[in-house]
């Protein structure tokens, strides 16, 4: 929350600074998914170096807010990374701009290397409670999940199917804090966006398939969600230019280089 607010203030300052130099720029506001936000910021930055007549502002707030903002007009473009868009998003035009694998992560000291979907479901439902049952050490599993309403969580639960999160699960409010919690607790298991994996944690393979860009592009890795850009009606003008840029070869290359998976 605090981070999001700071970002919004920072965006505000950027707008103020741009306004100060006297040039009139067409404003485009992009809001929504916190997972896609850093990538959208990078894309916006590059887009604006080419198009001096357009000012793109990127805000977070979550996928649900992305849908709401696009509907209400609070933002011209909403970002949402959900497997299934909510029914109210029917009224919006959705373009898939990227795909994002959700990696199941454990502590580096954990000996578990591979899990099946069935096992993942049972862990998060609280039916498998000890690593011993999976061939690991005899210790209780600490399940780490995201808060209700998170796009990553709803996508994860939808793809893994029938997950009723165990009540013992520790809840963290961002991909980053999930990573820290799993990195510090030897018995923890969590999930996070593929783009945010690093050496502090270990992503397990799911049915033998690793969560890598290649496997996701090839369609083999099972836990993948699309990232949508949403507009009210067909995008026009500056909005269309920005979405076109994101979908262009250059935009898709940026997405790939930053660790996400391009849509095409």
């Amino acid at each position, binding site marked *: *929350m605090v981070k999001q607010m700071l970002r919004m203030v920072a965006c505000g300052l950027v707008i103020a600074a741009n306004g100060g130099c006297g040039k009139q720029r067409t404003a485009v506001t992009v809001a929504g998914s916190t997972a896609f936000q850093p990538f959208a910021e990078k894309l916006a930055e590059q887009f604006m170096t080419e198009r001096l007549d357009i000012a793109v502002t990127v805000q977070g707030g979550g996928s649900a807010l992305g849908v709401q903002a696009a509907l209400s007009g609070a933002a011209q473009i909403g970002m949402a990374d959900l497997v299934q868009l909510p029914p109210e998003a029917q009224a919006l035009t959705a373009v898939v701009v990227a795909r994002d694998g959700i990696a199941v992560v454990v502590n580096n000291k954990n000996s578990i290397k591979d899990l099946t979907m069935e096992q993942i479901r049972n862990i998060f439902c609280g039916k498998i409670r000890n690593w011993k049952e999976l061939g690991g050490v005899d210790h209780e599993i600490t399940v780490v999940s995201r808060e209700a309403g998170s796009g990553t969580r709803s996508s994860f639960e939808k793809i893994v199917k029938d997950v009723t999160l165990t009540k013992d*699960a*520790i809840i963290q409010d961002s991909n980053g804090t999930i990573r*820290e919690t799993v990195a510090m607790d030897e018995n923890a298991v969590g999930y996070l966006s593929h783009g945010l994996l690093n050496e502090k944690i270990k992503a397990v393979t799911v049915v033998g398939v690793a969560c890598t860009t290649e496997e996701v592009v090839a369609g083999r890795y099972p836990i993948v969600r699309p990232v949508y850009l949403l507009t009210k009606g067909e995008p026009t003008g500056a909005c269309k230019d920005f979405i076109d840029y994101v979908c262009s070869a250059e935009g898709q290359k940026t997405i790939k280089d930053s660790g996400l998976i391009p849509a095409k």
Partner: protein
Amino acid sequence: MQDSPNTPVHPKRPARRRVAGAFVTWCSDHLARYVFLAVAFSATASLLLIALFILKEGVPFIVKIGFKDFLFASEWDPSAGKFGIYPMIIASLWVTLGAMLIGAPLGVAGAIFLTQFVPRSVMRIIKPMIELLAGIPSVLYGFMGVMVLAPFIRNHLGGPGLSLLAGSIILGIMVLPTVISISVDTINAVPRTYLEGALALGATRWQSVHMVILKAARSGIIASIILAMGRAVGETMAVIMVVGNAVKIPHSALDSVRTLTANIALEMGYATGLHRQALFATGVVLFVVVMILNSLAMAAMKRKTGS
């Protein structure tokens, strides 16, 4: 510009100007009064507006869901339309109680030590240092909790580490400045003659401290503890970071819990519709709890001045 009747009037100055000067003084006097009134009122007004806003958003929800299904149901699953905050109420109570068990004895003992057993000059150095504790941002307390306390609990006591116990310890430390500085002030306000009288009657230093001084300062000390409880109930950032935020009724101090404040802050970013209203309703519950605690503290303070 001063034209009060006592100042000698300049002989050359016409009477009309004197009257005008007095009028200006009168005006500025009254103007200042209203400006200050407006400024003072703005603080009260913002309290009133916050209260009204939270009530307006939250109360209809409580009415709609039903008082019992909101406060005493233990299922919290907003996407399935289940909004029971009972586990969080219990969690808030336990975390606060734990914080008081740690913070109150330490704080009161610290205050006694600072006022009775340490020279004034030393206290003048130590007390501001303790008050500095209050200035440390709560996120830093949380950070310490995550990096040091949680791993310690996990390795030595078991459980996930991020737990009720960790929250209580962090909050217990956070409320120390509140307990110590108010307790020190009330103990210092006890007339010196009480202590001298007790000592003259043959009481030892410790006897006179706990039988006379603590008794005389009791209401102030109780007020400091109640104010600290208010702070502990309302603390958000540090608590979110160390308690793990699992929605369940804790069975031991090592279990992960979610407090009322954590619930609001965690889910506010995503909540829409009924879910959002539920968070406001959680705010109503918190608001009422904190108001009750503050009123109790005020009542305790008043009793002291009354006796």
